[in-house]
């Protein structure tokens, strides 16, 4: 087993693989430590066929739609990770056991999977602008070349439309994805009322997604199979494990699993850092050594490793997470019309509410169709007799749009995490999260939602109800060890170096000082690419 390299990278999510890619490309040897859970059960069962074909002909479909233990039949309230179908549930496997978290106010999804949370992301790939990065020690221009490099590597489709000022540079985009009839009807109404919508601060257009519309290396353009919540059979949607797969074929890269990094120690007289890791199955401990350490274990995973390594138990760190709600709507012009047979299952239309027309305090919205997640989940939520609910949803399905609404988040005294020692086992601990947004903050979000939905109604799209799955549900976390120009403890330099260390770099959401409403994954990748290239350039 390889235990040494120039740089040790912890994790295999979007940030970690982007850093590893940049390092290997720069000629630096990398050892990636990862738990690396995969789905050995369902993925091999899923045919490379469309959702419709699978529904009509695959006798084994109940296994991947419902799960062998019926884990895909959620019987409780809508909760965090509700969109995780049985083939995606490995994403959150073992986290209760290996990375325990205690909170009564915050229910996050963390991952120990190969590819991390990126194994189930919605592929939204928009760039942050200067307004989004207010208060950060870096500017949009610092990220620009890295957005481009990552975009070219993973393949992003989109269009230069009304969302261009919010989504960023469109130079390296693949052609936009086909939008289904439901999404097109919404965009047609938007075009007819564009001036009034823009006056109200609402902008709409094609989504920008890391989904191929043209072949890229061994990945194929999407076949519009609508199986995106279940499988990656055509590899059209980018997943970080694809990069790990390529890296494993390159010299200078080694992937070791199932290892959970627990802590690091810089050797006083040598330019080396040691990482202690626990074998995820046996509990055995091993030490890995490198000249530099790159932590990409997620905002909370990295916080655990840093606090444990420094012995800082009970020390609060900030934590931010986008507030996130679902609003199912009926798109009235689509009532009674047939549903597009060939479609993809991800975002069909992007919307942005810019209330003050200045790019600040945005509300970011993704409009999804609903079909591939099956009717029974909708019927469960309806206060109707089940057969009537099924009939009504069959009638409404072609017109149903689910708006996924995200709000920005900034650090505040009521939003913290801290590492606490376990009472019964001396070497174990749990991350405790207290997350209490100020009442004014929540009220402002509700106001913005009301304004958004008023405009959406004018597009003949009628909201049915608001579903709030609770804090932590957006699966966008950040801010625990933020980049800063101030020389404060438990922050990083603008280049990701953890202050107080000589060679520990952070590349994940932990370094983002705040979260704008936009999805963060593409920025995580670009920022990791930036930090890793600077690290490689400065390596002795």
């Amino acid at each position, binding site marked *: 087993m390889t235990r040494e390299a120039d740089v040790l990278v912890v994790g295999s999510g979007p940030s970690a693989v982007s850093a590893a890619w940049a390092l290997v490309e720069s000629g630096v040897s990398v050892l990636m430590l990862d738990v690396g859970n995969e789905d050995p059960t369902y993925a091999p069962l899923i045919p490379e066929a469309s959702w419709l074909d699978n*529904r*009509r*002909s*695959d*006798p084994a*479909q*109940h296994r991947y*739609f*419902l799960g062998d*233990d*019926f884990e*895909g*039949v959620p*019987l*409780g*309230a809508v909760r965090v990770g509700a969109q995780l179908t049985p083939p995606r549930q490995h994403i959150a496997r073992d986290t209760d056991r290996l990375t325990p978290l205690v909170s009564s106010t915050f229910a996050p999804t963390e991952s120990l999977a190969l590819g991390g949370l990126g194994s189930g992301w919605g592929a939204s790939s928009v760039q942050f602008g200067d307004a989004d990065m207010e208060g950060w020690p870096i500017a949009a221009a610092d990220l620009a070349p890295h957005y481009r490099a990552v975009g070219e590597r993973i393949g992003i489709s989109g269009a230069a439309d009304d969302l261009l000022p919010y989504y960023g540079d469109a130079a390296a985009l693949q052609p936009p994805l086909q939008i289904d009839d439901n999404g097109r009807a919404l965009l047609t109404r938007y075009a007819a009322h564009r001036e009034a919508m823009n006056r109200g601060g609402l902008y709409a257009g094609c989504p920008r997604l890391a989904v191929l519309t043209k072949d890229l290396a061994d990945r194929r353009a999407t076949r519009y199979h609508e199986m995106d919540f279940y499988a990656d059979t055509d590899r059209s949607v980018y997943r970080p494990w694809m990069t790990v797969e390529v890296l494993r074929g390159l010299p200078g890269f080694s992937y070791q699993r199932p290892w959970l990094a627990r802590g690091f120690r810089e050797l006083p007289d040598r330019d080396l850092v040691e990482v202690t890791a626990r074998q995820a199955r046996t509990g055995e401990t091993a030490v890995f050594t490198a000249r530099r350490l790159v932590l990409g274990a997620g905002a909370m995973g990295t916080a655990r490793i840093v606090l444990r390594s420094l012995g800082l138990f009970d020390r609060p760190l900030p934590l931010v997470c986008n507030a996130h709600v679902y609003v199912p709507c009926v798109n009235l012009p689509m*009532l*009674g*019309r*047939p*549903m597009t047979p060939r479609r993809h299952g991800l975002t069909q239309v992007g919307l942005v509410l810019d209330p003050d027309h200045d790019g600040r305090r945005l509300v970011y919205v993704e409009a999804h169709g609903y*079909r591939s997640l*099956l*009717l*029974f989940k909708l*019927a*469960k939520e*309806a*206060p*109707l*007799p*089940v*057969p*009537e*609910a*099924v*009939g*009504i949803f*069959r*009638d409404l*399905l*072609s017109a149903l749009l689910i708006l996924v609404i995200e709000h920005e988040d900034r650090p505040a005294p009521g939003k913290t995490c801290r590492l606490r020692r376990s009472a019964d086992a001396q070497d174990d601990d749990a991350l405790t999260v207290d997350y209490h947004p100020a009442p004014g903050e929540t009220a402002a979000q509700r106001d913005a939602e009301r304004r958004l939905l008023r405009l959406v109604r004018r597009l003949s799209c009628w909201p049915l109800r608001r579903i709030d799955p609770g804090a932590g549900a957006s699966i966008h976390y950040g801010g625990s060890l933020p980049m800063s120009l101030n020389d404060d403890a438990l922050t990083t330099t603008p280049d990701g170096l953890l202050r107080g260390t000589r060679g520990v770099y952070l590349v994940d959401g932990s370094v983002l000082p705040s979260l704008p409403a936009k999805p963060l994954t593409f920025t995580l990748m670009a920022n990791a690419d930036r930090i890793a290239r600077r690290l490689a350039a400065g390596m002795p």
Partner: protein
Amino acid sequence: MSVPSTPPILGHLDAREEGLLLARYLLGREASDAAPMAAARYAEGCARLFAGPGACAPDDALTRFARRHPWSLPCLDAAAGLLTPRALLRQKLILMLAILETMPALADDFMPRPRPRWLLLLGLARAGAATVLKTLAGTVLLPLARRAR
């Protein structure tokens, strides 16, 4: 206050019969060739999801009542959907619905249904009226069923 108790212990045979009853109600007809398979999966699902503590006595009574008096199922479902959406009876209906929906032979029973808008509105009105009537009847029946032995 509901008293925690052991959930209904159904043998596989009982669970299959219950599954057939629920399938007939959900589809509005016999599930024909798919029925035995659906009932077997339902029995397996019940064993995985509903074995162990969690149900309460009124919940058991409601399910038992619906099994003994199939005519009451639409009304109890309607009232439970509105008043106690997490009731065991509703959960069992959702489980059977999920099973039926993922059977290729029944796929078209769950696909979007394009039709002229006037027909769609008529259908929605009918469903609305049926829901109101069933819910009214169910609201009367539900407390009785939850207390039944």
